[in-house]
């Protein structure tokens, strides 16, 4: 076993001596965290809403007041009054407006006559996030207005209504924080891919492994040496992204010692799973192009289905299957539980178990596939 230390010593000396590899493994996850984190998931604001009022009756007033309330508070849209339907529609088609609200003639009269008048909302649905936000705001208004009509004079006799009040279990989570678990997992993956894949195969093709193979080192010592040095490197960059990313995205109480301890545990187990997966993939490869070629594909195939950027519940069935077999999924889930929810072992127990089993299977496969010869 002592001999495996030779491989660990060599790899780690090189890794910590030249910061290039460490920096390279940090750049992608941190850039993604900051850019994706700010590009997605912000609340939609200031959509330009053309308002065309063709009714001069009294009931338009509460409606317009509700629009103003949204414009002033949630700021989903900015109402802009248009005098005619034609001009508003032209502006919508030209892209100067995001939506047009048309209050039809006789709206007030029909409302009072209980004729269920219709208010027209025309949205530019080429952008679904945008139109979705506007529609959601109007559904909200409509729901409020459709509550049973109460004559003003009996308002004090208002019966107890049942209302749905949403309780948010955790404080409001900015998207960057939602993304952080994925970025940390990505850091583990990039280190596994570069250190365990690209550099490993380059060393092999330069003949450096030949220098190992002529010595009495056993296959088991070789494999454990490569895996152990890979895991240490991955932990180094994973923890760096965790701390830097945690500070950038403003995770609360990041430095809680128990949380750090669990995060370390998660990182060790996640690094083991990803390194041994990489080692299994690379056990028989000798062409230095192979790890470079599969880097991008593997990144897409593991990162996006893992729920790192979008909830798995929104995936089509085949991708949910992919998510289930993707070790990323469990790492992301575990990190998310620890970073955004509570610090406890129970919510991450399954993740740790799955990752440990993955490691065992992948390592067994890798040792079997690895040949201690040229």
């Amino acid at each position, binding site marked *: 076993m002592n001999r495996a230390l030779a491989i660990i010593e060599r790899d780690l000396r090189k890794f910590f001596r030249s910061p290039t590899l460490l920096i390279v493994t940090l750049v992608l996850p941190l850039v993604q965290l900051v850019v994706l984190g700010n590009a997605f998931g912000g609340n939609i604001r200031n959509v330009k809403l053309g308002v065309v009022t063709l009714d001069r009756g009294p009931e338009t007033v509460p409606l317009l007041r509700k629009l103003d309330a949204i414009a002033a508070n949630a700021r989903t849209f900015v109402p802009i009054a248009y005098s005619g339907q034609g001009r508003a529609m032209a502006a919508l088609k030209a892209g100067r407006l995001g939506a047009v609200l048309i209050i039809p003639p006789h709206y007030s009269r029909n409302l009072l006559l209980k004729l269920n008048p219709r208010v027209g909302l025309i949205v530019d649905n080429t952008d679904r996030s945008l139109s979705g936000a506007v529609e959601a705001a109007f559904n909200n208004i409509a729901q409020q207005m459709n509550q049973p009509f109460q004559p003003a004079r009996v308002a004090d006799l208002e019966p107890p209504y049942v209302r749905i009040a949403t309780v948010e279990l955790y404080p409001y989570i900015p998207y960057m924080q939602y993304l952080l678990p994925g970025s940390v997992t990505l850091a583990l993956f990039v280190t596994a891919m570069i250190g365990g894949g690209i550099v490993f195969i380059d060393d092999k093709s*330069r003949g450096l492994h*030949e220098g190992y193979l002529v*010595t009495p080192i056993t296959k088991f010592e070789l494999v454990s040496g490569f895996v152990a040095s890979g895991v240490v490197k991955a932990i180094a960059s994973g923890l760096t992204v965790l701390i830097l990313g945690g500070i950038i995205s403003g995770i609360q109480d990041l430095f809680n010692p128990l949380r750090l301890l669990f995060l370390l545990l998660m990182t060790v187990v996640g690094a083991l799973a990803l390194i041994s997966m990489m080692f299994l993939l690379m056990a028989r490869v000798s062409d230095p192009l192979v790890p470079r070629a599969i880097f991008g594909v593997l990144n897409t195939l593991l990162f996006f289905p893992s729920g790192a950027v979008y909830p798995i519940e929104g995936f089509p069935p085949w991708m949910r299957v992919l998510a289930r077999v993707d070790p990323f999924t469990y790492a992301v889930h575990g990190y998310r539980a620890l970073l955004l929810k509570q610090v406890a072992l129970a919510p991450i127990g399954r993740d740790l178990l799955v990752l440990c089993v993955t490691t065992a299977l992948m390592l067994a496969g890798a040792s079997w596939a690895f040949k201690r010869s040229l």
Partner: protein
Amino acid sequence: MSEISRKPPHESAGIEVRHICKRFGSLAAVDDISFEVKPGEIFGLLGPNGAGKSTLIRILTTLIDPTSGTATVAGHDIVQAPYAVREAIGVIPQNMTSDPDLTCEENLTIHARLYGMSGARRKTLARQLLESVNLGKWGKAYARTLSGGMRRRLEIARGLIHQPRILFLDEPTTGLDPVSRMSVWEMISHLRDQQGLTLFLTTHYMDEADRLCDRLAIVDRGKIVVLNSPAALKTTVPGASVLETQLAPDLPGGAAELETLPGVHRVQKQGEAIYRIFSDHGPNAAEALMELARRSGIEIKTLSIQSTTLDDVFLHFTGRGLHEADAVPARGGMGRTAPF
């Protein structure tokens, strides 16, 4: 290197090769090779690129298995007891396998660790070995900053770190400048003379084989063509000494006329009135040539007598010159490119 204590040359520090074959698909890279290397000798394989030298070294150093045949190295079977073989041998592969991003000392200590050596011992041994290959001042220098010859010497030191009984060197001077080659040669002779190591080396330079090896196997296309000491090999070629001469004007009878001289076996016309004359005895042939020139009224502009080279031996046994034979597409073994 005398300050390093070394095990006495062991009785079993030899090599026995019996009918070793290695096929890559339909190509027989090593084709039924048998020979013996005695403890304490420098044994060489001389052959052109692609002859199968590296493949044979890889088999003997347990890097690849033979397709058929058996071999023992230091008394251990290479297939049955590869770990015992690995303990007993040091290997300097054809491609540099020292790590350019580590210092010379680290290259040695980490290699020592692969043999399970303790920390303190690794450090002292590394220092002594660097000193002995004249790299004592370079312990803290990165291997990538060394010249080709220094790098090769570092690799030799690395191959010696566990005090092996047999050292394998695959083309130890290929790609080196003349001065570096000399320093590597000195080191190799020194190892045998002072340490009693058995050395097994391959080369495609005939001067290297001639100068270093006690015995030599000439290999071509996976087979041993002939095996003997360099001196004995050269005497096996008829016309063991060579006259090179330039005449003015040319002999009317040309090469055919020269071949009638006593003791001359063969004449090669090298250029306009320039000849290579192969004879049994150089001085006699030279005298006969001068006599002929005098009779024919021809001036001998230059005349030199050389003994046969291993190149002539190779030519004699294979019908091709050593470097024409390189025409076999030379893959740097295992399809990798040499780092220089």
